[in-house]
């Protein structure tokens, strides 16, 4: 009851928009951008879901339990090496997330149930799982939004280590491959000088900076599933964040473009939009990948 669902992940929450630059307000007034329209649609959908959820919550609160089907597998214990699904019936309370239910099941029923979680507020990106046939961040998925039984599996296309824990090593390798750190061509002469970014530029890469490395997009991408070398949406998005950052300079940007325009870089994307759909941070991943494709073409086409 104490957990009102504040499903307002976007817009004004960004600290650097606190000052509300005049230019930003102007563009917003003039014409909504694609992102704003998308967010408006999402908000409408969220409002509709909210109403549905409230009704659902009331009925579930009366019934009092939620039925979970959880994937179990433990290679180290004989008798658990064959993957199976365990059923848990967890007492439901209003505002309960999938992660809350898993924590309850672990604390009260089976302490061997294993899953990653840390911040429980969609920041750390530890608890992306495959819930009812879709990659979701468990801590921001309301149980009342899901059909019962709620089927919880580890992320697809990654090796399962135990229960709901998958091996993220390959995902991290791909993320490291695009060199995800700020690395400008030349530093300001004064050691203590700030490297200020223009507000327009910051606004431009805003969505791209929000990646929490949860791996949901990579898991949903069926190109990444078939091609292990493909960088994947998250890594390309990370490259986008730095390529579009104006502070880095020409030659560093060129190096970055050369990384993503390789055979297993941006060109593997076949615009299925799966990643954009599952991203818990609403990053327009496909849009960013397409933009880098155009950058790569422009970079290599010379008519003069």
């Amino acid at each position, binding site marked *: 009851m104490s957990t009102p669902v504040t499903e307002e992940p976007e817009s004004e929450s960004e600290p650097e928009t606190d000052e509300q630059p005049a230019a930003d307000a102007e563009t917003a007034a003039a014409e909504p951008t*694609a*992102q704003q*329209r*998308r967010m408006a*649609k999402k908000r409408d959908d969220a409002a509709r879901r909210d109403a549905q959820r409230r009704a659902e919550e009331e009925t579930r609160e009366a019934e009092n339990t939620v039925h979970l089907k959880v994937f179990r*597998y433990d*290679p*180290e214990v004989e008798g658990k090496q064959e*993957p199976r699904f365990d059923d848990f019936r967890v007492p439901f309370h209003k505002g309960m997330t999938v992660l809350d239910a898993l924590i309850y099941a672990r604390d009260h029923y089976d302490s061997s149930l294993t899953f990653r979680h840390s911040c429980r507020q969609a920041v750390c990106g530890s608890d992306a799982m*495959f819930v009812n*046939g*879709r990659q979701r961040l468990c801590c921001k998925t309301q149980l009342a939004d899901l059909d019962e039984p709620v089927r919880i*599996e580890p992320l*697809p*296309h990654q*090796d*399962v*280590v*135990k229960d709901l824990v998958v*091996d993220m090593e390959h995902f991290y390798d791909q993320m490291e491959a695009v060199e995800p750190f700020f690395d400008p061509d030349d530093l300001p002469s004064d050691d203590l000088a700030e490297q200020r970014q223009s507000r327009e530029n910051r606004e431009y890469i805003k969505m791209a900076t929000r990646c929490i490395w949860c791996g949901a997009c990579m898991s*949903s991408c*069926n190109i990444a*599933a078939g091609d292990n070398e493909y960088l994947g949406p998250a890594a390309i998005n990370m490259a986008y964040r730095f390529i579009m950052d104006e502070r880095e300079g020409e030659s560093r940007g060129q190096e970055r473009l050369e990384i993503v325009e390789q055979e297993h870089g941006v060109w593997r994307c*076949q*615009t*299925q*939009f*799966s990643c954009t*759909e599952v991203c818990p941070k609403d990053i*327009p991943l*496909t*849009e960013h990948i*397409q*933009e880098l*494709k*155009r950058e790569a073409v422009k970079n290599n086409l010379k008519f003069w």
Partner: protein
Amino acid sequence: MSQTYDRGPVEDFGRWREFSAGMWAWIFHKFTGWVLVGYLFTHIAVLSTATAGGTVYTETIRGLESLLVVRILEVGLLAVAVFHILNGVRLLFVDLGVGLESQDRSFYASLVLTGAIVVASVPTFLAGAF
């Protein structure tokens, strides 16, 4: 952590009910593309009969067109070609970064338009076939 369990392709075609619009567009585009490639080969084979003379070619075409199954397949070919063209235009816009937020609606639009064009073509293709 001595071993890991590989579940194989969890998101295989068995989960088709959960596919989203973008995924369906991709599958249909692949499928229609391969059908069109296959058609090109038969197309060349049929056209090549013209090298043996005009009458042979005419006879081949007449023979083919007299078969009911060919008439029906032609409707199917039109459906496949129209969808591939319309979705190709959609992909062009996606590549240009135009209207990415309505990519699902443009997929449905291309499906509906394909259906309409195919239905409208049926009288022409199947005239006198039955």
